[in-house]
């Protein structure tokens, strides 16, 4: 079905090849998972198989790509699109319309199919992804998992022979992730199409016994079944950190209610968090995790109740004053790069706070060197790779040594190597007595690094306990997908 022979590709202006002599043969009906560290060329390979790489991106290409006997480098994308569907990482970015029906019908309308056939295919596509009940909804009102199901249905409506998923769950919580992977498996089994999934979270796909293709630096370094040697699984469990160092609470929330406009999000959260705690905040998307973090920096004010951070009521202190002691890393690295060089970015906050003294400069230099950015201080931050940007985000917060560090899904799109590096940096901060509160969707990370687990459900904390006990409570609540993979029932 798919034949890639000696494919190499270098993007215009890039000194390095994104793909190097890639050879890959995929038979009809195969289920293939392509994995590898960030920037290894996985997504570039997906774009090549779909033909987009040769039409929409400038660069230097050699080798051949054939799909269903079509030479993808020579055929128009429209012809390749009749055979290959590509579901991208962020459904939000790939939607072309405003409603579910319009979105699923979009490709069929463009192909000038008659209305009756569009209706039939739309009903079939929504049913195969289990989204018939969403047919009359506006896209903006869907949850992340529902959006991804609609994006898949929109591709399936065209009845492709090959469906490529480019990290389809990177923005999803574990519940939605499990649902989307079940949909993918269902499609593959029912429709018998060839499925390629580009994914870091290989453990979710193991039950489907896929063929594993591992890439590194643009090359395929493994192609075969999933084995323990090839895929050792997620981070191993490790001794948890001490629960607390002791001292005055860093955070004290009492009956905290927070909302947007008239919509309540947090509803009566009460807790205390002390110095030296590494707190993992988990829960489904929309459960109030990000709202909780934002309320701790005073970005959102309580509508009822109160929250004190480092002894100061967030209702009565400005964000800029609180921010001197509270660091916040937001979800998307690109939303928080403001300066024109890596050095200026790393020193941006201390400069704004008037705290860029010699000690701060030395701290930044040491952090940059440790994060492999020491020789890139003059580069523009947007020239860094995704993983490097994330490191820079964290450095720019650690630069002014805040006592409380808030992290909103720091690990999205990070491979294990990058994630471990960032987490080790944070562990050191905690050992020095700083407090870290990290929203994340990775039970293994929580298990290994967090001393305490807080789980949000509909704006309330339904679990708040030392990590091990927290997982036991989650298991009792039936939140199986939030448990480390070794503890999930098969």
């Amino acid at each position, binding site marked *: 079905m798919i034949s890639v022979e000696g494919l190499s590709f270098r993007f215009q202006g890039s000194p390095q090849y994104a793909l190097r002599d890639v050879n890959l043969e995929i038979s009809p009906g195969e289920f293939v998972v392509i994995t590898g560290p960030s920037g290894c060329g996985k997504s570039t390979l997906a774009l090549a198989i779909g033909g987009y790489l040769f039409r929409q991106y400038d660069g230097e290409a050699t080798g051949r790509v054939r799909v269903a006997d079509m030479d993808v480098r020579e055929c128009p994308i429209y012809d390749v699109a009749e055979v290959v569907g590509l579901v991208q990482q962020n459904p939000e*970015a790939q939607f072309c319309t405003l409603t579910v029906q319009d979105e699923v019908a979009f490709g069929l309308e463009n192909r000038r199919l008659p209305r009756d056939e569009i209706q039939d295919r739309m009903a079939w596509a929504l049913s195969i992804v289990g989204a018939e009940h969403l047919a009359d909804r506006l896209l903006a009102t869907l949850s992340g998992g529902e959006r991804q199901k609609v994006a898949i249905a929109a591709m399936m409506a065209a009845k492709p022979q090959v469906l490529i998923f480019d990290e389809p769950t990177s923005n999803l919580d574990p519940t939605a992730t499990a649902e989307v992977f079940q949909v993918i498996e269902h499609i593959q089994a029912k429709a018998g199409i060839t499925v390629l999934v580009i994914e870091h979270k290989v453990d979710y796909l193991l039950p489907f016994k896929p063929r594993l293709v591992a890439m590194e630096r643009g090359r395929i370094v493994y192609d075969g079944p999933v084995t323990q040697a090839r895929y050792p699984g997620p981070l191993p469990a490790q001794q948890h950190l001490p629960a607390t160092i002791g001292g005055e609470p860093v955070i004290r929330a009492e009956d905290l209610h927070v909302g947007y406009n008239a919509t309540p999000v947090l509803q009566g959260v009460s807790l205390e968090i002390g110095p030296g705690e590494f707190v993992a905040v988990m829960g489904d998307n929309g459960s109030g995790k990000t709202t909780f973090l934002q309320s701790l920096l005073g970005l959102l004010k309580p509508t009822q109740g109160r929250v004190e951070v480092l002894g100061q009521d967030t209702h009565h202190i400005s964000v800029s004053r609180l921010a001197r002691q509270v660091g916040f890393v937001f979800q998307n690295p690109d939303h928080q790069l403001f*300066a024109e060089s890596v050095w200026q970015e790393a020193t941006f906050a201390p400069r704004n706070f008037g705290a860029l003294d010699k000690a701060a400069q030395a701290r930044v230099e040491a952090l940059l060197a440790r994060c492999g950015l020491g020789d890139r201080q003059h580069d523009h931050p947007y020239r860094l790779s995704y993983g490097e940007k994330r490191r820079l985000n964290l450095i720019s917060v650690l630069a002014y040594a805040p006592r409380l560090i808030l992290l909103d899904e720091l690990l999205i799109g990070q491979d294990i190597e990058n994630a471990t590096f960032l987490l080790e940096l944070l562990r050191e901060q905690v050992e020095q007595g700083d407090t870290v509160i990290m929203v994340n969707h990775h039970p293994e990370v929580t298990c290994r690094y967090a001393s305490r687990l807080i789980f949000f459900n509909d704006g309330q904390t339904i679990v708040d306990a030392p990590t091990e006990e927290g997982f036991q409570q989650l298991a009792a609540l039936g939140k199986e997908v939030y448990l480390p993979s070794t503890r999930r029932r098969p």
Partner: protein
Amino acid sequence: MKPRITYQPGHSVLHHLHPLVKGAWMLFGTVLVFVVPDPWAVLAVLGLVLLAFRVAGLRLGQVRGTRLFATTALLLAALQILFVRQGPVVVQIGPLAPTIGGVKAGIYVAGRFLSVVFLSYLFVLTTDPNSLAYALMQAGLPYRYGFTLITALRLVPIFEQEGQIVYNAQLARGVQYDARSPRRFLTLARQFFLPLLVSALGKVDALAVSMEGRCFGKYSTRTFLRTVHFTRQDATAAILLLLVTVATAGALAVL
């Protein structure tokens, strides 16, 4: 916080009116307030527009920006009343002596301004933008342009949300929005818009892949699942508009 100036779903006659017929009525109202020679006629049009708000089940006080526009209209009227000196003085208040001509000019300017603004509000608040785009395409607008409108409608709230995130991220890193000098203003603007621009470029890439991957642009025409129906009520409204336009044109010619 008051709701954004965006479509408010409802079941009124105005909500159900075909977007293009409604647009034609709005255009007629806008032209009318500029061609009628009598200020009281302008006020009558404004009154009808406000009546239409009631018919649509909307309350102006609940719409963001109403107070700003009302204040602006009052200021415009006050300026005309104070500085236009035509005809006899209406009343002497200390040094102020507003004239009949000034009062009329004030009513003209404020009435026209509010009529145009509120007509636009009425159209935006009662028209599903998606239906408008599909109605335009089915009326002959090339579908590439129609989808430009839909894409803009889809991305505006996303960029609004991202703008808020960037602003919050800047506050968290100690950015002070204090434009003390043009240079500082430019720096703040660059720091704010650069992340949004980078994000927009990424979205354009993803959208291009998504659209081409679904054969957008393969043919010069396309079919439509969604049909914006032209009902008997729409036909009645269109004929009524035609009659009113002819009658108004005749009346204006006589005057």
